[in-house]
């Protein structure tokens, strides 16, 4: 049976590697089965393609970040699910397997490693923090993307009965609309960001003008649109990534 969450998890790495999933019978079949996953694939591929056409020198870790965010998107979109009893049991199998592998590995390592010369030193290794600005965006636009991501996350959780949350979202949307033209111009060198901001602008306008009388339907539609356009993932993808590298220290005496 097709499981969106599991399937998207499986295809994420292939998308990032820019493989043509439609050419793989296994994936092709599932893409035909589920239009939502098919859309997810098309949009993610477009995003990756768009990024690759612009020479933005996206770092390795940035790609890793995108991969991570795609995964997060899958998790976010999946939401709480009811698990079948059998599924619950099955879920433990990889954990037991991993534990067993770990025990085996440690055991083999102990057998294979000479007990002299190489020992791990307990001294804490120095950490180096690297900030990778995957795309050339000014700090205010980066902040704007972060705020946008936050607003979108909030909107995804709003229920029509949350009057205060709704009012807050409308207020933030109005505030962001004021700045949006300037942010589009600031990001002009990065077309995928401009595209994302343009779609986001119409979401903000829908939010700002949201009519409380039809809030239930309107919010559901806005949420669906945010999901379909992968806007949260887009807003995250262009933010700088921070990596801490801790070199593993060995004493080769």
């Amino acid at each position, binding site marked *: 049976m097709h499981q969106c969450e599991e399937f998207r998890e499986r295809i994420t790495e292939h998308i990032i590697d820019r493989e043509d999933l439609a050419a793989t019978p296994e994936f092709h079949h599932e893409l035909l089965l589920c239009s939502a996953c098919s859309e997810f694939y098309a949009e993610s591929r477009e995003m990756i393609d768009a990024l690759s056409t612009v020479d933005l*020198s996206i*770092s*390795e*870790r940035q790609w890793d970040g995108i991969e991570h965010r795609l995964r997060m998107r899958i998790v976010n979109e999946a939401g709480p699910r009811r698990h079948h009893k059998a599924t619950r049991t099955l879920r433990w199998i990889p954990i037991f397997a991993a534990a067993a592998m770990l025990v085996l590995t440690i055991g083999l390592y102990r057998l294979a490693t000479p007990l002299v010369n190489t020992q791990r030193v307990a001294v804490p*290794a*120095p950490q*180096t923090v*690297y*900030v*990778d*600005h995957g795309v*050339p965006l*000014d*700090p*205010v636009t980066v*902040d704007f993307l972060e705020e946008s991501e936050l607003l979108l996350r909030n909107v995804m959780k709003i229920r029509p009965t949350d009057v205060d949350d709704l*009012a807050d979202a*409308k*207020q933030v*949307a*109005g*505030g962001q*609309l*004021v*700045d949006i*033209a*300037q942010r589009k*111009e*600031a990001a002009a060198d990065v077309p995928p960001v401009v595209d994302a901001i343009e*779609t986001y602008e*119409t979401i903000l*306008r*829908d939010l*700002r*003008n949201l*009519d*409380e*009388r*039809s809030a239930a*339907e309107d919010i559901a*539609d806005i949420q*669906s*649109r945010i999901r*379909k*356009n992968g806007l949260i993932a887009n807003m995250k993808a262009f933010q700088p990534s921070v990596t801490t*590298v801790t*070199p593993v220290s060995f004493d080769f005496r």
Partner: protein
Amino acid sequence: MKTIRILLATLALPCVVSAQNVTVHVPRHFLTPPSDEARETFNAGQRLYDEDNFTEAERKFREVVQRFPRHPMADRADYYLIRTLTQLGKRSEALSRVNAFARTYPRSRWVTDVEEMKIRLTNQVPPAAERVLLQVPPPPPAPRPIAATPAPPRPFVIRQRRNGGAVDPEITLQQEMMRAMFRSDADRAIVIATERLKSNIADPVVMSTLNMVATSASAQALPMLLEIAKNSPNAKARKDAIFWMSQSRLDKDAVVDSLLSLSLSNGDDSDSINFALSQVRTEKAVGALATIARDKNKPEPMRENALFWIGQSGMPNRLAMLEDIYKNSMDSSQIRNQVLFALSRTREPQAATILGTVASSDPDIDVRRQAAFWLGHMRIPEATQTLENLLRKK
């Protein structure tokens, strides 16, 4: 149990009708919800719009407007139709819809958005713009104002929203007027902006048109941006002014000098200053970044950030510059590590060679490891070859 309840209800319903002969309020769950064709069509239009399929999107939005003119979503669909027509280059039809909008939907919440669109499409300064813009701008936003201001006559007036929300859509409208003003008379627009800043140093209308200030070619542009960058208590305003200084059409050297002077007095916005310098894209600007990166009196994060942007600058001498900074930073492994990172991000074959040299010769083993680490992340054949050579040497 459910079946019994349904049966009972089905039996009871005709009795109630015949006994009272009044309108029957059938419980909602007895009926399947009616499908909202207008909404479905609108949503389909939005999907097409998001996919940049504007021709089909136009068809859907037009269908909503024409077939369901009294539907609560008709005004929203009309706004989207106007946007779509603009995307398709059908400017005259878009404008005629804009002009008819307020008459067709007098109570619409989308009137402001449509008025903004009108200014954008016509690029004309509305007659009342200057008067409106010179009105005392609203004070910094309070959490949630409750008092409504009285509504002056239209057009282009400050109105409060009917929905009681705290958002003042007129700010976006005023912003659009200000942009139009910059396009038609930049010097006058700067005078108005300066006046507004006197009343509210963080005036959102001015803050959202700094790009127009920067690209206006007015002699007043750089001094105004510098003033905001130096003295605004609002961090976002300062950072934005710094960025837009780099986009100014004025003399690039003067911009670099102003940014460097800011870097001496303003440590809080160092990231913005470094980024702005990198965006000026001149040798002098990259030289200024190198000066910051070399300055041992500056905080390390500021120096590290400058190193990154030297690497990203695209200047032909950037690698030589980074190598030189590396060689002159033997007292700081932290800075040397950041040089390696900046080199690796360039993905230049020559950078791989430098990293290879560092990986085999730096006095600090951790720096050597970092060099090897970044070589492994460069994903260019030269980096792989360098790593292979390093392994062979061992």
